[in-house]
């Protein structure tokens, strides 16, 4: 295809996606000039390009729309629903024609004239025309396989490649030299550098695969508008978190499930205005779609304030359909009942409608999301609303996993499915035989125990002999315990689909090549549950406990003994793993504890008690971007706790106190830890530059400098290079400030008392005062825009 034409199609399509939302927003607020201008610009651009590329039909359409919009801009015409519909219809048509140009199909031009006529003032609603025009193209649209990238990212990748070539050369030279003798060190360093380059490259490349979830959300306003108009409902859509980034493939994969969820919410969830009034709700229903990142997952919430799902009615339908037995239903927990909406062939909608009753049910939504390694959670309050949460992994290809082994064979289990790992023989673990099967009781909670060996070899279970028990949560909500021989390592694995013959076994999710380059299979947690016959219904046993839990949100937390022998707890979700490191790896440098581990330096926190002399046990924590370590004495248990009750008086490592089995236990504040960890990581490169005058005084160099540096500033001394770019100056006593520098000056004095009223200097051991003054002056300077 002609390059120019290809460019035009790509650009038009990209703008189209964003524009549908704009038009709807413009309808809601007709006086919004910015939106009107954006739409006008689009049709104007299309018109211009079409004239240039000789596409007369597109030109006619865009010209007509441009004329109508120009009238509105010039206040000759008021925008109304009919006009918006007509403009939308034209924009849709432009999209269809663009697709047709790309695929080389032909579209009949019969409706073009109708669309143009609908733009005229006083014309009827264009809705009929829209539907007639767009119905033939309802088939799957060929997704364009090209992407646009910021040039900056491309530059970064190119630079990365150059670095890699250099590192390769360096490695080659070291290898050559190494043959001569000394070897060893040089090669290792060169290899380190190459590894680092590859790591950076991997980051950059995965960035190219990322796209803002906005590309998915931008279609929603239009969808909601059309649906609510069709169904005679009033819906206010709130979209949040559009800047969250997600793998492009992943966005395509969740497009259909999300659309379906929105359809469901408007069709079945949100009631008609009259019904809402009767129920004492505002006539306008609310639908909130939000996205956020949590660790390696993206959470997409769809919350509506409609009638929700009635779990009991769902159960009744399931019983009628013969899917559930009546006695089984009686013992179901609320969440189990709600999970029934994911059962094929069950719907609570009283009548099948044209909008969502198309045979695509929530079972398909769940299947689609699970296919990409995600989960769907549902929570409903009948009469008050429904919340659906899609949890999807950040990327398709690289997943964090844990390696386990059974005899000599290694397997990987996705981290997202693992709830906890316990060792058999601990106080809290008990294994019982029951009717030929095994039950593991972990802290009083009973779960079916599955022996991986039995699943793989089809032999009777020997799970009571396995050393390690892994508590798993499968996608379908089944929870069970898997008995394995050993747990090895946490790795980020590049997972590829295995051969069909291997996948046919039903218990593998893919194949991967870990560091030791022996191929390994990724276990499919749901598949194993199926193979072992763990039915989702077995959860009924702990149903009463779940009902209790619903009253207060309980979070799993890790209870540990801190170095000062006090029991403390931290939210389990943030703890990546528990490790033992040699004490020599920890060091106090530049005023902070740091830990050299796995080739990087992590901020190390602790309660303040001295570190043990030989071996430190650490909690590795990860919030998705920052890693840090917290030194502890030993792990006690995993407990469920409510939110912190007594909040700490001032920010610090302790967030507050929570009750654990009736005892008050201090809760660590992960927010504070990560904030500190980040501050440490950035301060070296990006902190404001602080120039210290009077470099000859050893006090300034050895006492003041480190203090200022530890607070996150870069420090320069008078006479150093780069001092001229200082953001703030600290001068001691009466030393004159450097000439020619237009920056704020903080003066410090060695006497406790100031000399008089107008003495704004600060006592040199008043740490808080000094740091406050530095911050205040820098902020004041930024606010005033360098007026000093």
């Amino acid at each position, binding site marked *: 295809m002609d390059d120019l034409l290809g460019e035009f199609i790509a650009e038009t399509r990209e703008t189209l996606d964003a524009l549908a939302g704009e038009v709807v927003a413009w309808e809601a607020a007709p006086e919004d000039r910015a939106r009107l201008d954006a739409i006008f610009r689009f049709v104007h651009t299309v018109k211009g390009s079409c004239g240039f590329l000789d596409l007369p039909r597109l030109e006619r359409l865009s010209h007509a729309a441009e004329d109508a919009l120009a009238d509105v801009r010039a206040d000759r015409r008021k925008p109304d629903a009919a006009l918006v519909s007509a403009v939308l219809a034209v924009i849709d048509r432009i999209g269809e024609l663009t697709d047709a140009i790309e695929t080389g199909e032909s579209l009949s031009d019969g409706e073009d004239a109708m669309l143009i006529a609908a733009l005229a003032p006083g014309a009827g609603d264009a809705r009929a025309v829209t539907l007639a025009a767009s119905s033939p193209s309802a088939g799957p649209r060929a997704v364009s396989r090209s992407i646009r990238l910021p040039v900056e990212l491309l530059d970064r990748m190119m630079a990365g490649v150059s670095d890699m070539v250099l590192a390769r050369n360096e490695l080659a030279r070291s290898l050559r030299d190494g043959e001569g003798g000394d070897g060893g060190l040089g090669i290792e360093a060169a290899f380190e550098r190459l590894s680092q380059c590859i790591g950076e490259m991997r980051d950059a490349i995965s960035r190219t695969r990322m796209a803002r979830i906005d590309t998915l959300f931008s279609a929603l306003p239009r969808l909601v508008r059309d649906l609510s108009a069709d169904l005679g409902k009033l819906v206010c859509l709130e979209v949040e978190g559009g800047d969250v980034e997600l793998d492009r493939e992943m966005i395509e994969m969740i497009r259909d499930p999300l659309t379906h969820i929105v359809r469901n919410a408007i069709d079945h969830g949100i009631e008609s205005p009259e019904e809402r009034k009767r129920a004492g709700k505002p006539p306008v229903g609310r639908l909130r779609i939000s996205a956020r990142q949590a660790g390696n997952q993206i959470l997409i919430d769809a919350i509506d304030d409609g009638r929700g799902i009635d779990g009991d009615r769902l159960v009744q339908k399931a019983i009628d359909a013969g899917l559930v037995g009546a006695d089984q239903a009686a013992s179901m927990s609320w969440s189990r009942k709600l999970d029934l909406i994911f059962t094929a062939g069950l719907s609570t909608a009283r009548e099948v409608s044209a909008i969502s009753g198309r045979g695509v049910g929530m079972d398909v939504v769940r299947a689609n999301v699970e296919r990409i390694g995600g989960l769907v959670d549902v929570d409903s309050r009948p009469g008050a609303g429904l919340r659906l949460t899609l949890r999807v992994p950040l990327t398709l290809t690289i997943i964090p996993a844990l390696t386990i082994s059974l005899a000599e064979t290694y397997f990987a289990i996705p981290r997202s499915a693992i709830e906890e790992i316990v060792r058999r023989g601990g106080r809290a673990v008990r294994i019982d035989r029951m009717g030929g099967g095994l039950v593991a009781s972990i802290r009083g909670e009973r779960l079916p125990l599955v022996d991986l060996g039995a699943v793989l*070899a089809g032999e009777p279970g020997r799970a009571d002999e396995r050393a390690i028990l892994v508590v798993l949560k499968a996608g379908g909500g089944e929870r069970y315990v898997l008995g394995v021989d050993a747990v090895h390592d946490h790795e980020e694995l590049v997972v590829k*689909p*295995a051969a*069909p*013959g*291997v996948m046919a076994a039903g218990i593998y999710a893919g194949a991967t090549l870990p560091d030791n380059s022996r191929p390994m299979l990724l276990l499919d947690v749901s598949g194993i549950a199926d193979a072992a016959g763990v039915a989702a219904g077995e959860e009924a046993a702990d149903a009463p406990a779940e009902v209790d839990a619903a009253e207060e949100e309980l979070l799993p937390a890790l209870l540990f003994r801190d170095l000062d022998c006090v029991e403390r707890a931290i939210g389990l979700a943030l703890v990546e793993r528990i490790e033992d490191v040699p004490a020599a790896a920890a060091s106090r440098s530049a005023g902070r504890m740091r830990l050299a581990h796995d080739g990087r330096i992590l901020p190390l926190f602790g309660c303040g008690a001295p570190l043990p002399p030989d071996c430190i046990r650490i909690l590795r924590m990860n919030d998705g971007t920052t890693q840090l370590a917290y030194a502890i004495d030993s792990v006690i248990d995993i407990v469920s706790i409510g939110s912190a009750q007594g909040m700490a008086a001032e920010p610090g490592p302790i967030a507050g106190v929570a009750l654990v089995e009736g005892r008050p236990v201090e809760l660590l504040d992960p927010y504070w830890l990560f904030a500190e960890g980040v501050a440490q990581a950035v301060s070296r490169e990006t902190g404001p530059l602080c120039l210290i005058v009077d470099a000859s005084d050893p006090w300034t160099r050895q006492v003041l400098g480190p203090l200022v540096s530890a607070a996150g500033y870069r420090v320069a001394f008078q006479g150093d290079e780069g001092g001229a770019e200082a953001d703030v100056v600290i001068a001691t006593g009466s030393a004159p400030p450097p000439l020619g520098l237009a920056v704020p000056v903080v003066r410090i004095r060695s006497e406790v008392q100031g000399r008089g009223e107008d003495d704004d200097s600060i006592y040199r051991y008043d740490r808080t005062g000094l740091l406050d003054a530095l911050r205040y002056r820098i902020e004041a300077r930024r606010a005033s825009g360098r007026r000093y």
Partner: protein
Amino acid sequence: METLFLIASIAGQRVALPAYHVESVVEMESVTPVPLVVPHIAGLFALRSRVLTVIDSLAALGLGRTPIGGLMQAVIVGCDGHPYALLVESVEDVVRAPRPQPPCAVLSPEWARAARGMIEHEGEPLLLIDPAALVAGPPAIAA
């Protein structure tokens, strides 16, 4: 028209494989077993950071099983986008031969499923084996 064939031996017989499908011939030492799969999948093998599925050709034909261990010869083929390593007893040569003929012998049902004809090489008839048939394995036994 002449095409290329790889001559290997499976189950004590010299057979020909279409060279067009063959990526390479390797010697494998360690095969990672895969539990709970059809018997003709002998395991996984890593070759140049790719994971290959190892096919036991003997089992795929339904003629027994190849003992796994020691150095093993394998022919690497691609099938439906997945790489496979077909275990063979030995690999002889790549030869040029004219277009295959229908086999003139009455084949046993095991061989008949995998055979796609016969070629002649230095006066000797060789059965032409379809790698995809080996990958697919023996027909499922009805339960």
